[in-house]
């Protein structure tokens, strides 16, 4: 009975764990790390943190570059064209996000100064 139900769910010791499960594990743990890392940020730094983490979400630039990675021969002409347009636009948007985010965060953080000790 147990074997039967395990088979139903595709459990087979000889089969490697599916990629998606590894990905889900990583996803879940990273969320916990995110909560731990950010939890004690003073109000003072909320804006730079927002824009700085916003810049980090530009990591999708890696995805944009990878989406561009594909063998040319395998695509039909229409598909190739559409994918080119989508990929190029994705790179542009992600780059604005990354560059704009980091530069503006630095610009803000540069302004925070301690009062001169009297």
């Amino acid at each position, binding site marked *: 009975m147990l074997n039967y139900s395990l088979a139903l769910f595709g459990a087979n010791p000889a089969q490697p764990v599916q990629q998606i499960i590894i990905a889900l594990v990583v996803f879940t743990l990273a969320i916990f790390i995110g909560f731990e890392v950010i939890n004690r940020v003073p109000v003072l730094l909320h804006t*730079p*943190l927002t824009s*700085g983490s*916003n810049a980090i*979400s530009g990591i999708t630039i890696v995805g944009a570059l990878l989406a561009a990675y594909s063998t040319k021969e395998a695509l039909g002409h229409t598909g190739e064209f559409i994918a080119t347009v989508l990929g*190029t636009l994705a790179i542009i948007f992600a780059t604005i*996000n990354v*560059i704009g985010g*980091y530069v*503006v965060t630095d610009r803000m953080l540069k302004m925070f100064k301690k009062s001169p000790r009297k």
Partner: protein
Amino acid sequence: MPILAFTLNDFIGLAYLVASVLFILGLKMMSQVATARRGNFISSAGMALAGVVTLLYIGDNQLISLTWVFAALLIGTAIGLLLALKTPMTGMPQMVALLNGFGGMASLLVACGDYVNSVSRHSHLNPLVLQVMTRPWSELLAVGLTVLVGGVTFTGSMIAFGKLQGLKITPSKPIQFPGQKATIAALLVLCLILSCVMIPTPMSGQWMVPTIAVAALLLGVLLVIGIGGADMPVVICLLNSYSGIAGAFAGFVLNNMALIITGSLVGASGLILTNIMCKAMNRSLANVLFGGVGANEGQASSGSDGAPQGNARQFLVEDVTYLLGNASQVMVVPGYGMAVAQAQHAVADMGKLLEERGIKVRYAIHPVAGRMPGHMNVLLAEANVPYDVLLDLDGSNAEFEQTDVALIIGANDVTNPAARHAKSSPIYGMPILDCDKAKQVVVIKRSLNPGFAGVENELYFRDNCGMLFGDAKKMVTELISRLKQEG
């Protein structure tokens, strides 16, 4: 047993891991002023590493020729630099909203592009055979979800941008219509169903993916259009979180750990900030999103024409100068009105002038003052106010009783003592700055009109409070010249 060689893929994977560690370290360092700037730099180094390694991996075996890739990178860099360097500090909320939106859009495009790639490859290989695409269920589901979250992030951010920028097509007050919530729910369910249906019938995604995209874009508009301008700090945090989640989902599409880790970090940090903002207003996220608070913004609740009413005391510039000059502790309470009037430099100058006379000047900053988390801190930092005199909610409330003059500039609801006792008030329970406990309160404000929440501020009618009517910048400048005259 065969020995598996160290491949290029392994190298790339390790480089992504290093980049992820740099992001985590960078974020951690950004929680302290002393290390924040270095933290941002470290995180950008992580991004550079991830980008360069990916470019190397792509090499010249790419769909888009490298010319296009570099052209796109250059265009993006130019626009990004222009935005980052030219936007004034008062425009930061809009800028952050815009960048959030772009991140979401990029993730949406990545998912669509990846889908087009796999469809085209299939159609090409078996042009006549019944087309069956073989992709794991998780990747197909992730395409739908990425398009959904990315689309909502994009249009939601654009609407937030419009509201913050004061564009006419996106009025700052919430726009709500009958059936709005039902439409939102229907669109959301449609997107989720289509994403699931795509799993057994991958080829049907050719019309489903665009449908999800359109529905998600519409959803983003409907979600944010119903939220008032002063609730934008929450919206910005939430959209920030969404842009991270969209990136993480795109990581599921491409099976890329760098995207998954980094996206979820940002998703989590955005959620934490969202939660902080909601707590600071004593409201639930649902109330912020769907409550339509602020619909009667700018209208007096008791049907007045905006003229001073009740028996609030009116001060003249010389009264306030006298009070300030004779104080030994002054607490400045800035709000959105200071940002609108661009008065931060004048306020800082006044603070310096008082400091020179041996008066202790500090600034009480409410977590939701302004239009984005930490808005006031950034503006005052820009005006060279050192950050150690910027006090947070608890820090300021510990000081008000010893404060001689609390000078409120453009803040309203966050100073209303009704939040402490009036159970019927919409702002009841909201943590406020206890300005009323100062010996003397001075409010610089254009009129007695109620603030965002549409309630009258009972502080204005207290014995220890006086109003200085006028534009924040003009009034502060007048105070400065008067103080100088009296020398």
